[in-house]
């Protein structure tokens, strides 16, 4: 059972939230950002090549042109592989843990799994970030010895910063699953 809704990110770009329910205690929420646009790619490439041509006209050194081509290619590859995140997803499995996956435009995926014993709660926090106050979803981790204190804060959806309406949807979905572990009998 999957549903998809459109939202906006904190900077105004359109993002989509896809929610899938695999079972009663397992849910997957994925936020997709926009794909790499052809117009921004061609704008960046033409800017770099025009600058290189200007340098070539000034210095009469043809190495500048080939260096510009290399820089454009390598810069594009580095950007796609390390910077441009296409989709960030959250897989919540009640009583097992939470898995956070970021998939980059080049196909690379990096995942982090947090077991349920360490998860204290999933909350919407607000903090100052680069002269703005933004809402962001984060997982509060607890120390096993000290269940009352917060040992670490893991922010989610860092690159496709969704706005509050999208965050509320994700928050409600996560809380439905996290509540089940209070009513379920303690096994340890």
């Amino acid at each position, binding site marked *: 059972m999957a549903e998809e809704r459109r939202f906006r990110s904190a900077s105004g770009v359109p993002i989509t939230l896809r929610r899938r329910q695999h079972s009663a205690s397992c849910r997957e929420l994925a936020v997709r950002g926009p794909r790499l646009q052809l117009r921004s790619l061609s704008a960046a490439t033409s800017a770099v090549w025009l600058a290189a041509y200007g340098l070539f006209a000034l210095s009469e050194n043809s190495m500048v042109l080939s260096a510009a081509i290399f820089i454009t290619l390598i810069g594009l590859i580095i950007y796609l592989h390390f910077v441009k995140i296409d989709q960030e997803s959250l897989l919540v499995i009640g009583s097992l843990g939470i898995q956070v996956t970021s998939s980059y435009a080049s196909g690379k995926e990096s995942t982090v799994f947090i077991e349920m014993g360490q998860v204290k*709660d999933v909350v919407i926090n607000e903090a100052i970030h680069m002269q703005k106050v933004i809402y962001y979803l984060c997982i*509060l981790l607890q120390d096993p010895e000290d269940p009352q*204190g917060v040992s670490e804060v893991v922010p989610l959806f860092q690159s496709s910063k969704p706005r509050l309406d999208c965050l509320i949807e994700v928050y409600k979905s996560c809380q439905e699953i996290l509540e089940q572990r209070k009513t379920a009998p303690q096994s340890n």
Partner: protein
Amino acid sequence: FYCAVLYLIWAYIPETWLFSLGLTYWPQKYWAVALPVYLLVAVGIGYILLFGINMMSTAPLNSTHTVTDNFAKKQRQKKFQEEAIPALRDIPISEVNRMFFLPEK
């Protein structure tokens, strides 16, 4: 105030007149202009520096300081009294979130 008058006298009276008065070992007149310039540039850089220091000491998004602090960790619960306003305390962020975001409209 007296320093200001002294400073003006030193800056404006030509050197020869000061020498004739017997005051020979005073700093070069260059400093009469250089020191105010230094001060003003320092004030201007101070604006930028303060801005930068503020940005650097803002807690990053993944630190626990955005959620709690030393006072909130050590607070003690007062006993609940009937028909009295509850005591002032730091409410944990999970409770605040539940109050804000969970009730259906």
